[in-house]
Every structure is written in C-alpha cells, then in structure tokens.
C-alpha cells in the first residue's frame, strides 16, 4: 500500500507467564475496534483489563470504513472521536443511480446543531491505531500482541484461558471474558457455539484505490451501471485520497481470479475512464452472511461485535453496531464489578442488544435481498422498482441500496422507566432513545452530549434542583450528577446555557422538566418536575437494584 504502512506491535512476555498469574477482573479477546473500545471504556473506569490478540498489527486493508454519528459520539467519550473526525472524510449525502441516471438523493443529517456529522469515512486501520494509542495512555489497560487464546474453560464465577505465545503457553483466569475476536471468532468455535441466520449467494469485490479526484465526498451507489452491467457498484471516499469501490460479482465469480490485478484493472478503467490515474491499494473478494448467536451472554462470557452477529456491509452496521454493543455492556459490567449492581444486570445486555441486532439484521437482510435478489420473482420486482424509480417518486422510496446505521431505541428494555400516565412530551426522546445533541454554553465543551459522561446524569430544565438534593444524588452508591439548563442559581451542579434554543426544542424542555440519562447516553426516564425519590427509583431499576 502506498498511503499506509501497518505498524508492528511487538510480542512482549507478560509477568503472568512467569509467576502464578493473577486473577484478572476482565480479559478482552480481540484487539479490533470493538475489543479496543471495550478496553478503553473499562480502563477509563479504572477497571484493570487485558486485551489478547493473536496478531501483531491493526487491520490489513480498510475493511470497516463508515463510522456513524452515534459511534463518533461514543468515540468522543472514549477520547478518540476528534482524531477520527480530523483524519476522516465527513459525508451525509448519498446518491443512487439506476443505469446512468440519478434515481434519488438523500441527506442523512438534514438539521444543524449537532457536534458530529452523519458519517465519517475512515479506514479501519486508522481507527484501530488511534484506539491502540489511546490505550497506551491508560494505566489500567494493556494489549498483549501474539497472545492467542487456544482453550476456554467457563466456570461458575469466571473463565480459565489457555494462551499460546511465541514463548509457549500459559493460563490466565478472569472474572469476565469479553469476546470480540471477529466474524471467525476462535472463542466462539472453542465453546462450540453456532450462530443462526442466512448466507447470501453473492460475491463482491472491494478495491481501495489511491486517486486524485474532485468527486464529492458522498456515497454513490449504482444499479446496473453502464460500466458494470447487470450488477451493482458502490463508491466511497476515504482519507488520504483513497477511494473504496465495491463491485457486485455474482455467485459464480471465482474469488481467486477476481482478486488478480489484471482482472480488477479493466473493471476500474471502465468505471473511471481511460484518463484516470490511480493505484490499487488493497483488494479483496468477499461473501456475506446475516446471522447472530441466540444469546450474547453465556455466564461469564460476553460476546460483542462480529463475534456475536454478522450483517451484510450495506448500511454500515458492522463496526457501528459492535461499538454500540460495548457501549451498552461496559457500564453494566463496571457496576457489577464494583458491587453496585447484581450480575443479573448483565442479562439486560441481551435484552437490549439482541433487539438492536435484530433491527440491524432486518435492515441488512432487506437491503441484501434488494441488491442480490435470491429468486427470479424477487429480481423481477427489484427491476420493476428500479424501472419505476426514474419517473415515479413513490418507487424511489422502495429502492434499497442500504438503509444506513442509526442507533437503536431501547424501547422495550426492563431497565427503563416509561413516562408517567398523563404526562406528555412533544419530543420523541422517550426512555430508551439515544441522546440528541445541541449547542450549549457551559464550563467545558460547547456541545450538550459532552456533559453526559461516564455515569448517570440528570439534566434539569428551568427551576433549579435543590443543592442538597443534587449533592445527595452525587453521593449515592450509584452516583448521579445534576446538570442544570438555564440561568438557574443555587445548584452545585453544572449550569448550561441553551445556546441556540435547540436543547429545549429537542427535549420539549419546559420549566421543571428533568431527563435522566444512563452512562451510555440513552434516556433512562423523564419527568415534568424534579423528585429525588423518582430519580432514585429509576436509577435502581436501570441497575437491576429494584
């Protein structure tokens, strides 16, 4: 590759290999985006964590490239968001072409007043590199490269691992094991767990090319383009003037042949024209599946990311959903490890992330059925939609080139406190919704979401929460910080000014309104007036302490 050289992270012998190893609270298997995000989140909560990886470097090839707004907000909380946004390519507009005509255009973030854009495209290796560098700043976390898990023995109160290294094997015991070792998860195989779902009979070529071009930073998708008849193609811009191009090849394509430059170059030439100057950075041929494990928690073993579920790439739901998995898991695990919540809180990782996964699988399966129709009649209807899309607006809504990743609204979770009977809000941000951002003026950041940090946060509009009540909430076993919106005085909490009026608008923040946010920045409960007992009851429910 011309634009990127993979770093090499050297194998290091750990003290656990010499002395009888210490029991670890948490071990993470897999130093990909999901495992590294989990480790950073744990280490930021001062929970010691060891990450084991069988390799010595970050992702080879760009792989996951589209990071959604919600993921960027999580990365902000993990101290990596700014680097990703600075290096990456922001975009929010997508265009879908049928043959050589534009069928429709969409804008994924049509409103202003959010810190982060709808999407940032960045090669996965950069994200992983930034996460590895962030971990180096955190004394509670270490990554052990070339430490490969070769045996897993679940126990009633933990997990015993056998780990293979260039220096020989050793054993390590942990209270909790987070499994984030990817689509071909070794740990999943070692535990004999099978995931259920479907494999799609289609093959795609991914090519990353380096090219100086004034193409816009947008997602362009073609059905049946003149340069690649009867198949689809997708174009995305990444950092360093690298472009991602996906070509649908069909099931009969020979993956070994299609990977060869002499096969790839004519395809690119047909697409980009005879004069384009480009170099191939990386290419791969892939098939895909939509499937998941029946459950993600198996006693003290917790699956996340591709190890837990697989989706097709259309919709950018792989890495995004994996990072959202650990965003949901880590605060719960931290409370359990601190003794502030019972272990059954971790059952709600399944209760919340399985519906989220199923939503992703549903969208991903539908997109895939549209892009790769599985039967003659499915193909006929797909072609009928594309044919109608040119002239009729209704058909454009049916064209499905990937419905792009949005965070799940945990509507049916047992951890949430629904709105009280008779209370109405002119805001869709009910319990379970991810926080909506807005510009603010305050003691730190100019963005609302940055005030929702690693614990529970009560955001109170209008009349101030009594200082004694705010102090008491901050001193509970599961503490809650009070953030006051408006020119309130008399609170020891943080006071924010609703700089553009958007916070009140988005939350229907009439005076007295209080929103309780969970540590993962999802709404936990909301009320029209402050009541300490109600806040404590909602926190107790949200931590399985009720």
């Amino acid at each position: 590759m011309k634009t990127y050289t993979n770093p090499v992270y050297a194998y290091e012998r750990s003290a656990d290999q010499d002395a009888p190893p210490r029991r670890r609270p948490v071990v993470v298997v897999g130093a990909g985006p999901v495992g590294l995000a989990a480790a950073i989140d744990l280490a930021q909560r001062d929970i010691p964590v060891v990450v084991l990886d069988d390799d010595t470097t970050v992702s080879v090839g760009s792989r996951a490239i589209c990071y959604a707004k919600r993921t960027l907000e999580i990365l902000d909380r993990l101290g990596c968001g700014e680097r990703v946004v600075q290096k990456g390519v922001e975009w929010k507009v997508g265009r879908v072409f049928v043959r050589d005509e534009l069928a429709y255009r969409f804008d994924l973030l049509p409103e202003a007043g959010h810190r982060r854009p709808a999407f940032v495209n960045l090669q996965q290796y950069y994200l992983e590199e930034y996460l590895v560098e962030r971990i180096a700043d955190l004394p509670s976390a270490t990554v052990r490269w070339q430490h490969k898990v070769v045996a897993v023995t679940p126990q009633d109160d933990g997990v015993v691992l056998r780990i293979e290294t260039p220096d020989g094997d050793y054993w390590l015991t942990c209270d909790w094991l987070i499994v984030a070792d990817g689509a071909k998860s070794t740990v999943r195989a070692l535990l004999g767990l099978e995931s259920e779902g479907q494999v799609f009979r289609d093959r795609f070529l991914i090519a990353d090319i380096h090219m100086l071009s004034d193409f816009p930073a947008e997602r362009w998708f073609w059905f049946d383009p003149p340069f690649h008849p009867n198949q689809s193609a997708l174009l995305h811009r990444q950092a360093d003037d690298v472009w991602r191009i996906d070509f649908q090849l069909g099931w009969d394509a020979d993956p070994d042949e299609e990977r060869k430059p002499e096969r790839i170059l004519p395809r690119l030439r047909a697409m980009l024209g005879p004069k384009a100057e480009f170099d191939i950075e990386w290419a791969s041929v892939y098939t895909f599946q939509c499937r998941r494990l029946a459950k993600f928690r198996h006693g003290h073993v917790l699956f996340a990311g591709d190890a837990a579920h697989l989706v097709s790439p259309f919709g950018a739901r792989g890495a995004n959903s994996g990072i959202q998995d650990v965003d949901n898991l880590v605060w719960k695990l931290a409370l359990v490890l601190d003794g502030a919540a019972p272990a059954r809180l971790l059952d709600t990782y399944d209760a919340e992330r399985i519906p989220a996964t199923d939503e992703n699988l549903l969208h991903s399966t539908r997109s895939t059925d549209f892009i790769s129709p599985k039967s003659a009649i499915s193909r006929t209807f797909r072609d009928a939609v594309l044919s109608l899309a040119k002239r009729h607006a209704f058909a454009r809504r049916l064209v499905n080139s990937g419905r792009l990743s949005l965070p799940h609204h945990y509507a049916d979770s047992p951890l949430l406190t629904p709105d009280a009977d008779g209370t109405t809000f002119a805001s869709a941000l009910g319990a379970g919704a991810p926080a909506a951002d807005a510009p603010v003026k305050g003691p730190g950041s100019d963005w609302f979401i940055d005030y929702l940090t690693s614990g529970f946060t009560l955001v109170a509009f209008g009349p101030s929460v009594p200082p004694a009540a705010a102090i008491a909430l901050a001193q509970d076993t599961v503490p809650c910080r009070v953030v006051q919106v408006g020119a309130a005085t008399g609170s020891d909490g943080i006071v924010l000014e609703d700089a553009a009026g958007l916070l009140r608008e988005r939350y229907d923040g009439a005076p007295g309104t209080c929103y309780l946010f969970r540590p993962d920045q999802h709404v936990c409960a909301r009320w029209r007036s402050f009541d300490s007992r109600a806040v404590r009851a909602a926190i107790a429910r949200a931590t399985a302490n009720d």
Partner: protein
Amino acid sequence: MAVLGTDPNIAAPDDFYAALIALHRDLDDAQSALVNAKLILLLANHIGDADVLAAALAAAREDIVAPR
C-alpha cells in the same frame, strides 16, 4: 381500519380484462413478469393503506399451496 373491497367496483369489467391481456401482447415471459410487477407496485402505492395491502396479499395467496 380500512377493508379490502371485493364487491364489484370496475364499471366495465370485460373492457378492463381485455386491456389487461392486451397489455402483455407480443411480450416474452420475462417482460410480462416485469409489467405485472410494475402494475402491482403502482396499484399498491395508489392504495397505500397497510391493512388493505395486507388483506390483498393474503387474499392473493389463499388456496395456493407451495409445492414440496
């Protein structure tokens, strides 16, 4: 809840039927299938109502058993 109308509603049924058959004249099977699919999509959008569409989908499939 809107209901799928199955009482006679087409003023000149023979004319409509003849037009439907004529629509497919000179087409091969693949083209006919495409025309039918477009027709279904156009009519479905005109109806719009989810309950009516669901009832129509069910009525169309009634008495048809998939081969083993």
